[in-house]
């Protein structure tokens, strides 16, 4: 199965499996996921809470060990790397978290927090460090002179997220994983942070993996979108195309569930029933079949492979909508 986005992708995940033990049971967090991200691209990753999207993001950085599969970053397999080599590679990949306040050490000054990546990566000259910290803080829209001596609790959530973005960018990385970067923020602040990310992407030439459960946000920022359900990829495709003509019933249901700001429009009747099944015991065959209106016997027996349904658009479904 090929999901070729470009001839020379920056990140290529091959058949990645991540599992972890909870109380003696195995949680199948990520099952056999393969995906590619081209240089300069923003890939949106959507799915319900607990579908494994954050785990996938962390497994890329080797913060969670993979059971099997490969994570090829710029041609190097991160899953086989250890120690200093892995640490050097990690500097090119940065992470932005959901809770901006919890991702800053409450007892360290902003200047130290933003300089920390430089210290770890061995920038010895304090003058050079402070120059880089000043530059990156100005780039994210904060006044370096005002913020470096302060503690995180003196800032709002939106300002903390700017500081987190500054920390992620200070090493001039190639790839940034944004793990729900705006879901903890006020709606009025979201747009600012999203605009800032777009601006930074252009300025630093970044490639982004944008993890979110908010389809509207993902649609606004992504070039391509991947939809995940219970540890598996359902559908991958260019953003516009996927939202206009979803091929997987789950994608269609997600899009139908986006609220329309008009009180006269009735909510769609096709909202999936019930909770997603537990990732400890996922359903056989297609994992979405227990909530899918189109499911039949074949869906229970055969795991659907990702297949091309349109140019650039792939869906893992036996009965695609297009």
């Amino acid at each position, binding site marked *: 199965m090929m999901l070729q986005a470009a001839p020379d992708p920056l990140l290529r995940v091959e058949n990645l499996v991540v599992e972890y033990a909870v109380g003696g049971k195995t949680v199948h967090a990520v099952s056999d996921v393969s995906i590619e991200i081209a240089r300069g691209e923003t890939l949106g990753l959507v799915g319900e809470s607990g579908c494994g999207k954050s785990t996938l993001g962390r497994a890329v950085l080797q913060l969670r060990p993979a059971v099997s599969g490969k994570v090829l970053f710029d041609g190097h397999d991160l899953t086989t790397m250890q120690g200093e080599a892995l640490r050097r590679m990690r500097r090119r990949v940065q992470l932005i978290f*959901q809770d901006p306040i*919890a991702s800053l*050490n409450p*007892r*360290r000054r902003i200047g130290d927090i933003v300089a*920390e990546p430089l210290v*770890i990566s061995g920038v010895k000259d304090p003058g050079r460090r402070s120059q880089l910290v000043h530059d990156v803080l100005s780039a994210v829209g904060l*006044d370096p002179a005002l913020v470096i001596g302060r503690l995180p609790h003196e800032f709002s959530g939106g300002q903390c997220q700017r500081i987190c973005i500054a920390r992620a960018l200070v090493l001039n990385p190639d790839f940034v994983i944004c793990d729900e970067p705006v879901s903890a923020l006020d709606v*009025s602040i979201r747009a*600012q942070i999203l605009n800032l990310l777009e601006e930074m992407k252009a300025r630093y030439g970044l490639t982004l993996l944008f993890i979110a459960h908010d389809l509207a946000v993902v649609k606004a920022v992504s070039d391509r979108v991947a939809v995940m359900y219970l540890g598996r990829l359902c559908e991958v495709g260019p953003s516009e195309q996927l939202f206009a003509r979803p091929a997987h019933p789950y994608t269609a249901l997600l899009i139908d569930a986006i609220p329309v700001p008009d009180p006269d429009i009735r909510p769609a009747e096709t909202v999936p029933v019930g909770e997603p099944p537990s990732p400890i015991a996922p359903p056989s065959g297609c994992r979405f079949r227990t909530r899918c209106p189109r499911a039949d016997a074949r869906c229970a027996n055969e795991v659907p492979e990702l297949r091309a349904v349109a140019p650039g658009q792939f869906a893992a479904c036996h009965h695609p909508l297009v």
Partner: protein
Amino acid sequence: MATLELGLEEDVSAAPVRPARRLGALFRLAIGWMMLVFAVAILADMLPLPSPTDMDMLEKRAPFSFEHWLGTDGFGRDELARLVYGARVSLVVGLCAPVIGLTIGGALGMLAGYFRGRFETFVVGSMDVLLAFPPLVLALAVTAYLGQSIFNLTCILGVLGIPAFMRVARAATLSLARREFVIAAQALGATHARILLRELLPNVLLPLLAYFLLVVAVTIVVESALSFLGLGVPPPVPSWGSMIGEGRESLDVAPRLAFIPAIAMFLTVLSFNLVGDTMRALTDPRQGAL
């Protein structure tokens, strides 16, 4: 997403308001008393005091006088001098023993809370064993074998304090180690030692230090209790506990001999507790929430 087009600039120039922090008169009194006790204990040799061990059998239980400000005890020794030299023992044991507990217990607790797994099980298990051991029996056993001295007493009380410090450090580390800023440091490629020292220690140190001051107060009391029972520093070296113990014999004729050291100890312990509570409230960046 029409909201995406909004370009409102966040107001980052407004200076965050620091809450005004006021120190009460009680806190000042507590600090004043602690400084007085520290000063006389350190400068005891230089103060114009009679020897705390010279006996004057003609002046047994003498009342307050210009010569003996706080009178004399049952052996005619100057009460004020014994009180001052007794403060030395109380402070040395009261401060050194918790330092042992803080260092060893704090390190064990942080390692257990960060690395988890078998190491944590082992540490928590052995601390439970130590906690289950009756402290007085341990003190008796050690003093019986190694003899009574300030050093031995400090070591016993220090070791007995390790489990409590370990628990405080482990609880604080456990709640912090899964926070995003620790994961962020891991993602940056920081080593375990760096994460423990730079990310976790500054956050764990404060609850530990607040607890430290409480343990100082408790240790002073325990040292006195052991001295009262005759397990503390050997006579004739004065200690507040042994002074109360000796004063007990003449409670009916000269109750002040027991009450004066008791009051000194009460005020010192109260001061440590007050300062400990205030320090914790003062140094918490977000009051009541971490």
